[in-house]
């Protein structure tokens, strides 16, 4: 696949170097802060489970209690495990309940050695469970096999009710889906806790809960056996609880996670600092769990123009690559996002799509790019919609995309119906089966090569500006998706604290 665009290797290297320079300050920020969600994730790994009668998880109650007493700057692990020792409580969840009842006070011991040790032992047990799930995945893939074709076929399920989702997901897998994504209720990204239990009441999506993860993964394990192909499960480690959801995903053997601070910042108005801190920890967990992340650059093209803003996608992909590598993710785990969102009325729109898609492909040859279907220019004309989706599928095949998020003809109308998915899969099958090898006959001419190189050079210009001005300022200025998001605004900032000198996070030690 590589090499069709004649990209200049030194230009590409320069783009990467600029992304690293632009990203470094953000990483520094992430390394020097912690958040309520990072600390809750630590406690989840240490064994805190369940929720109070109002549905507020015990981890939230515990972190709030610790924070009230000593703040988050030391990390919660030491105060919590120190309290375990002083109170003699053996079970962290019991401690959380006591703390919630106000019957425990937290302090930071002068000599934190023992508390650190105990904490680390507890979280190591959590990490070990993640490791076991990863090994289990490897075994199941060996047993059932990977999809026969690239791109993998990725389908969304979105009834809002886990018990309607399950049969629909199984039906989709039987009909050919390689990856099932359960999308989330519109409200969840802004919740600063992870709901508990099996849920039946979501709006345009189903809540991400540990129990829903477990139920769906079990159902798809069954179907994997049935279809003789390991069917992957995806959810969202986005929003205010990235670290915790990443942890739950690891514990329940989810296989891919939407995971991108930029989406939360731009489209859910989450505070940039909060979410960059959260993102780093969540990616470290994903790295450990062998989970593929999906980034959200595609979304920029729903608010910005896909031609004008093409280079902002490239810039964001380069930065996401840098952030991901820094957090320990390998190239095979980078489902960088991009999308088929050019106005279809534009002359040569399809060739422009090819240029953009191929640019991503050649810039990130080892990443399983996530290729998103047309959404913005879809209308209620479902006949036209199915046609556009067909050309989207073709562009995916021609440019060797890794993960094909299947478009639905009803995109502008409803969350997908059962029959929409069936029609969409039939579309994908036709295109991949009939024209999947057309890339052998695809040799971009000057138009496509020119466009790709132009986007790359615009990306370099923008990266240079970001290196000068700072990533946070670029975000504040509306560089991405024309959404202006200043670093001192947005949701969740009050959940961030600077790490103290003695900050201790037993999980990070092991990652």
């Amino acid at each position, binding site marked *: 696949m590589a090499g069709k665009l004649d990209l200049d290797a030194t230009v590409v290297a320069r783009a990467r170097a600029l992304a690293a320079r632009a990203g470094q300050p953000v990483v520094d920020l992430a390394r020097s802060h912690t958040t309520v969600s990072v600390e809750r994730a630590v406690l989840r790994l240490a064994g805190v489970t369940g929720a109070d009668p109002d549905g507020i998880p015990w981890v939230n109650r515990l972190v709030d209690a610790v924070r009230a007493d000593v703040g988050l700057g030391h990390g919660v692990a030491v105060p919590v495990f120190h309290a375990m020792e002083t109170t003699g409580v053996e079970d962290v969840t019991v401690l959380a309940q006591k703390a919630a009842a106000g019957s425990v006070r937290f302090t930071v011991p002068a000599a934190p050695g023992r508390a650190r040790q105990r904490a680390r032992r507890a979280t190591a047990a959590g990490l070990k469970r993640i490791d076991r799930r990863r090994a289990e995945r490897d075994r199941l893939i060996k047993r059932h096999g990977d999809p026969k074709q690239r791109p993998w076929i990725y389908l969304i399920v979105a*009834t809002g*009710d886990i018990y*309607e989702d399950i049969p629909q997901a199984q039906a989709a897998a039987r009909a050919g889906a390689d990856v099932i994504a359960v999308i989330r209720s519109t409200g969840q990204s802004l919740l600063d806790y992870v709901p508990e239990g099996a849920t039946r009441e979501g709006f345009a999506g189903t809540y991400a809960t540990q129990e829903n993860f477990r139920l769906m993964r079990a159902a798809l394990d069954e179907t994997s056996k049935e279809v003789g192909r390991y069917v992957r499960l995806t959810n969202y480690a986005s929003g205010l609880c990235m670290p915790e959801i990443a942890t739950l995903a690891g514990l329940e053997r989810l296989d891919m996670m939407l995971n991108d601070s930029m989406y939360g910042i731009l489209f859910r108005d989450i505070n940039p600092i909060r979410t960059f801190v959260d993102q780093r920890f969540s990616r470290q967990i994903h790295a450990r769990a062998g989970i593929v992340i999906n980034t959200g650059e595609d979304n920029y093209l729903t608010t910005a123009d896909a031609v004008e803003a093409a280079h902002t996608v490239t810039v964001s992909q380069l930065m996401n690559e840098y952030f991901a590598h820094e957090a320990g993710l390998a190239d095979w785990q980078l489902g960088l996002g991009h999308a088929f969102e050019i106005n279809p009325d534009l002359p040569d729109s399809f060739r422009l799509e090819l240029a953009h898609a191929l640019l991503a492909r050649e810039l990130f040859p080892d990443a399983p790019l996530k290729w998103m279907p047309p959404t913005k220019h879809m*209308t*209620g*004309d*479902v*006949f036209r919609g199915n046609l556009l989706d067909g050309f989207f599928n073709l562009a995916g095949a021609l440019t060797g995309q890794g993960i094909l998020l299947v478009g639905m003809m*009803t995109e*502008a*109308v*409803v*969350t*997908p*119906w*059962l*029959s929409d998915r069936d029609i969409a899969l039939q579309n994908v099958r036709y295109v991949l089966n009939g024209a999947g090898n057309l890339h052998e006959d695809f040799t971009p001419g000057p138009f496509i090569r020119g466009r790709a190189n132009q986007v790359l050079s615009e990306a370099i210009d923008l990266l240079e500006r970001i290196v000068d001005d700072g990533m946070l300022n670029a975000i504040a200025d509306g560089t991405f998706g024309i959404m202006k998001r200043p670093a001192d605004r947005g949701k969740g900032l009050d959940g961030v604290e600077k790490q103290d000198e003695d900050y201790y996070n037993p999980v990070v030690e092991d990652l």
Partner: protein
Amino acid sequence: MIIRPYGDTTGDGMVQLSFTLPIPHDKRAEGAALQLAGKMGMDPAMLVHAKQMGDGYTFFVVYGKVNHLVDTDKVHVVERDFPLLSAKEVNAAIKRRLRRRLNVVGACIGTDAHTVGIDAILNLKGIAGEKGLEYYSELSVTNMGAQVSVPDLVETAREKKADAVLVSQVVTQRDAHLQNTRAMSAAFREALPAGRRPLLIVGGPRFDELMAGELGVDRIFSRGTTPREVASYLVHALAGSPA
């Protein structure tokens, strides 16, 4: 069993509808489209697409919930009321009961030139992995091809002492298939007394299988018919069902 259409959740009753109204596109036209959807039982109905075509026509796409219930116990269909036999069984039954080969004459009548369907039923090659009636040793098949006039068909049926006449009709514009079928059955009624009249069978993708009586034929076969079904029916109707 009472069921409803299923869009995204059980019982949601959702359907998709499209049509053209002979009026230009404006708010009133959209209201007219919703009025039609309402009359069809869609409530609520969402008008999701409207596009004017030329001067005086607008195309609409509507999604919505229909309130009608479907009662599967009250469905009218022509169920197969005879056993599906293998070629061997067909041949054996004819041999045993008729003691002679069963004569079949097939044609595509009128000006219809679509022979693929009738050929699929009659010719050796068959369809969907099943051999056609020519393959059955106890069936004697005359395939007259397409564009056969009704008098020629009656004549040939008489000549070949046809036990069954198989007629195909694919073109349906202005109900051509219904008109031709009626003309055909009337001609047979006129030409031959009730006892000597062959079994009349018509087939084609757009027939309603419930209309046999109305069209004066014994049986109608529609979309996706296979030769075995036809052979089994012939045995059932002409050689009695084998117990």
